[in-house]
């Protein structure tokens, strides 16, 4: 990675592009961890093992409200 002395007009996207293309092994490792983690969380954990209980079992807000009301009234 060479040092750049230029202070010419700042380009946010150019900074991003250069940052990503010149990333070190550590940076790439961390990005892989982030991506794998998010894929695992959102495409495996959430839909298969942690779905929203009310969204999964009830069609609309009225049904959800009725369910929760029943739970509140009937719970021992």
């Amino acid at each position, binding site marked *: *990675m*060479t*040092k*750049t*002395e230029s*202070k010419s007009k*700042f380009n946010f996207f150019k*900074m*991003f592009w*250069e*940052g990503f293309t*010149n*990333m*070190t092994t*550590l*940076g790439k*490792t*961390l*990005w892989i*961890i*982030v991506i794998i*983690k*998010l894929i*695992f*969380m959102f495409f495996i*954990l*959430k839909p298969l*093992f*942690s*779905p*929203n*209980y*009310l*969204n999964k079992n009830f069609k609309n*807000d009225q049904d*959800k*409200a009725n369910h*929760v*009301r029943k*739970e*509140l*009234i009937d*719970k*021992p």
Partner: protein
Amino acid sequence: MDFFNASSVVDWSRLQFAMTAGYHWLFVPLTLGLAVIMSVMETMYVRTGKEEWKHAAKFWMKLFGINFAVGVATGLILEFQFGTNWSNYSWFVGDIFGAPLAIEAIIAFFLEATFISIMFFGWNKVSKKAHLTATWLVTLGATLSALWILIANAWMQYPIGMEFNPETVRNEMVDFWAIALSPVAINKFFHAVVSGWGTGAAFVVAISAWFLIKKRHNDFALKSIQIGAIFGFISFVLLAITGDGSGYEVAQKQPMKLAAMEGLYEGKEGAGLVALGVLHPSKSDKSNYDDENDAFLFKIELPKLLSLMGYRNFNAFVPGIKDIIEGGYTLPDGTMALSFEEKKMRGEKAIKALANYQVAKEEGRNDEAAGFEAELQENFAYFGYGYLASPERTIPNVPLIFYSFRIMVMIGFYYILLFAMVWYFYYKKTLTANRWILYVSLWSLPLAYLAGQVGWIVAEVGRQPWAIQDILPVKVAVSSLEVGSVITSFILFAVLFSALLIADISIMLKQIKKGPEDTDTDSVY
């Protein structure tokens, strides 16, 4: 008394949330603390022009980035659980919980994520001051994230600013600022964030001590200890102050939690603060809350300090567990405390009114429905008591809270002393000649993390049996799931978090061993 019932959905859901929250709180404090430290070091660089400060800032920024990348979004797993395991709670709280979390995601996270890219990619591409601004904005973003989460948690401890709508079965926010500026929220925010600062400082001093022990990068290590020790000392002193504030708020709003923290069964005027003590084993059985045994086998008490902390009056009456259950004492607002039986009766009235309201509405008896709604609102403050079969159900796990609180406080005072000593040796330029203080600084690091964990145990186990103080007990908040599905998700979350923690530690250790030389490039990453 069962500590954990392996066939209980409630117990597994609680354990799962505790496990994931505990793991999450391993990453967050370091993010909060390192953010400030790296910002201060970069400020030193911009002010002095000395490259050594830039190298130091970049090294800690690298470790910040590792911790941030591995820990980011782990908080979402806690949010997943609200929808899966705690659906009754999730619906019941309405937008009160959702709004702060949404604000956190939109404002705080995007602030962090936007400026973090300039922080890592922008060296030598933007001016020094612009880069420094970005670094401080990352720190601000991380801190703002904590703010909104803690506002949401504070509402669970002290529900305020809402009205319950029996039609939708949801609590509706009627006063956003009452929630956002709740004294519990403000105090909790400062205490939690400053605890992160303390953890970050302990981390920096520990790692720097390691470099000095290894006789590597001495100048860098000494500069880091200079900042870390001062910042750490200030942080832990602030923790003592905000901790006092927490004690005051707990006394006012959650007297049972305070009684559990102190092992106080019989209330008294001029109550002392227990510095050290061993609880009588019989009190582990909650049904013995009013037996003849002294609560303690042994204790050292600081006279009158509990009254002072809780009520700002050396002679104030501090109710014990028995008093809170039996009622009949004067509350801070001048009213008389209700007994458990009275609260239970009101709670049962509220639950019955909710049921009757629904039937009346369905049958078109709107005038009657209005009457039931009024009865519900009148007794809503005690709604949760209607579910509790006996007064013992209102008592949290006293030994766990009592000992956790003492561990947290002792570590806090230990670190005030440790940072003072480190700074003293640094000032006298005798740090490297006194290697024992370096070893102590290094090996003390786990204590900083332990303090954070037991602090949350006090806050959250002390809140039991409530998901929302006085209004919704945990056993009603939980979803009607099969226990097997909760166990499965528990195992998966444990595996995920363990893998992330192992990755975090191993990558960090590798970079620490490399030391700060490699940071002398344009990009830290």
